[in-house]
């Protein structure tokens, strides 16, 4: 579904990703580990087309189409969705109005589906509120997921969906992510794929991932079974990865 090849990216003239290679297949969920500043969020922002992230070389191919030069909204319309780690508050724009726009973009006309999604995420009372304005950390995470549900993208990127979420909510967050990633179907029957950034790995107790990538210094460092990789990181820290490389 997504092929990233030799992706080198700079922000304000400084290289922040150097030759990133990875892929995510249809039906797969990959997890992206890495210490702070290793480039995980930068990679997601590059994939969604943030204009500050300038692609110096390499390519991003989504569903067979090179999207490296496309603007963000076109990528979103093609089926890439992202739950941001720290989204901005958008004063004056009500959450429900954005959700309505999201479902209209994908050709859905039944507005009641918004209420149903909101109910599932315990966000009914937030629909009339301005997006993210005065939301708590956990509410923001759920609001991001709600927007993704309305968008229904084929490729779902989640930037630390488990940070700042309490134990009760993380269960719900995990359920919703599993639903979006069609985890109730056999892998070959799934039409969607996902990529999850996680720092502490809590979300992996709720969402099964197929493969893990480790990022260090702006590049994909290694890949492997998510649980094994996480166990290694927990045991030896990211310094262990560096030792491993030597």
């Amino acid at each position, binding site marked *: 579904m997504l092929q990233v090849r030799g992706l080198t990216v700079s922000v304000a003239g400084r290289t922040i990703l150097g030759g990133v290679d990875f892929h995510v297949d249809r039906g797969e969920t990959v997890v992206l580990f890495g210490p702070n500043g290793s480039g995980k969020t930068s990679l997601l922002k590059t994939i969604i087309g943030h204009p500050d992230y300038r692609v110096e070389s390499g390519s991003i191919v989504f569903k067979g189409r090179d999207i490296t030069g496309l603007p963000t*909204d076109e990528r*979103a319309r093609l089926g890439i969705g*992202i739950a*941001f780690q720290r989204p901005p508050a*958008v*004063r*004056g*724009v009500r959450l429900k109005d954005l959700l309505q726009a999201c479902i209209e*973009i994908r050709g859905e006309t039944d507005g009641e589906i918004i209420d149903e999604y909101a109910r599932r995420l315990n966000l009914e009372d937030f629909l009339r509120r301005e997006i993210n304005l005065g939301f708590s950390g956990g509410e923001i995470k759920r609001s991001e997921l709600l927007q993704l549900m309305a968008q229904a993208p084929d490729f779902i990127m989640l930037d630390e969906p488990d940070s700042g979420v309490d134990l009760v909510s993380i269960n719900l967050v995990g359920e919703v992510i599993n639903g979006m990633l069609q985890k109730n179907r056999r892998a070959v029957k799934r039409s969607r794929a996902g990529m999850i950034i996680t720092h502490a790995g809590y979300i992996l107790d709720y969402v099964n991932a197929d493969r893990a990538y480790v990022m260090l210094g702006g590049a994909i460092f290694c890949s492997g079974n998510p649980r094994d990789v996480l166990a290694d990181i927990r045991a030896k820290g990211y310094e262990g990865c560096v030792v491993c490389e030597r």
Partner: protein
Amino acid sequence: MRKIDAEKKAKAAASRPSVFGPDIDLAAYSAEAEDHGSVRRLKELPAEFKDRAAYVGIDAEEDCRAGSFFQADHTVMFSESRHKGLEVMSTVEALAKYDWLEDYWWEAVGPDTDKYTAQAELKQNSGYFLRALPGARAEFPLQACLYMTRDGLAQNVHNIIIAEEGSELHIITGCATAQRMRSGLHVGVSEFYVKKDARVTFTMVHNWAEDMAVRPRAAAVVEENGVFLSNYVCMKPVRTLQMYPTAYCMGENSVVRFNNILLAPPGSSMDVGSKACLRAKGSRVEVVTRAITSGGDIIARGHLIGEVPEVKGHLECRGLILAEKGRIHAIPELQGEVSGIDMSHEAAVGKIAEEEIRYLMARGLSADEATAAIVRGFLDIEIKGLPEHLKAEIRRAVSLGGKDRLM
């Protein structure tokens, strides 16, 4: 004020420039206008009049209206109340009918305020008189339109609005110019008297020709438990608009709220303020301004004066600069004359955060759609205390104005 006294004062101020706004050469405008005659029903107005008036909230069919007033240039073409507790007529007619009107004439606004008020006295071209009798409450609003057709004309109107004790008066007023009209001068004096336990909502929408000079001069006197809500919407080009309506909270627990929605396209200069003098215990005022420039100049003023203890006031101004050459200057002033008052202000001027646009784009909205959604939200002031149909009128005016200029 007696006519003779008003004239005397006006003559003394005939060349006095306004404290604010560029000075206007009054001699550059003509006083001559054709007589448009009268119509028996509002819907008999010429089609163009109706179309242009509709844009500023005037419904020629008079559905959901308690009465109407329509003045084109100097001609009062129609005035009628459809509710027995409400009076609608021209101020010329009202002055002839009611001796006591002198007690209100130039009592809230001084005829010698500046050369514009002076001109309104010395060269008055009618204006509307709207009155709710004691205890009267109409479900629907009155509508009043001041319309201009003749290029280069000066229209000087003097309006009086009285809500007698315990009454409720909702007004939609629109000022507009004919399609072909380019330049002119509109001077509009409006004096509001909100008696004990009365309530006035006044929603004014302006749609001027691009080369118009506009000088409204308004003041409201609000008595005990009285409520005065003023909503002003101007989203069309106007060469120079300067107004600074003042509310005097004279009675205990009186409430005033000004909402201003301004959009200044290139070539427009708007200097719009709202002032309130809190003169009685328990009185409250709130001023909310949303200003957007897509290339024009906006000065958004606010001045609250707390003259007695136990009063409360808040000023809020938010401005969005959507074009490189646009300018917004927010000037909030708080003046406390005694202790025991509670007054505050907040002002913010800037452009739309790129981050917010990008965020909405990540949901599939184009950059234009994202900008439009944010602008729409910015202008969507939660106007408290307005009947639903008036809210709808304001939303309609905002969306029409925004559509042409921004979306």
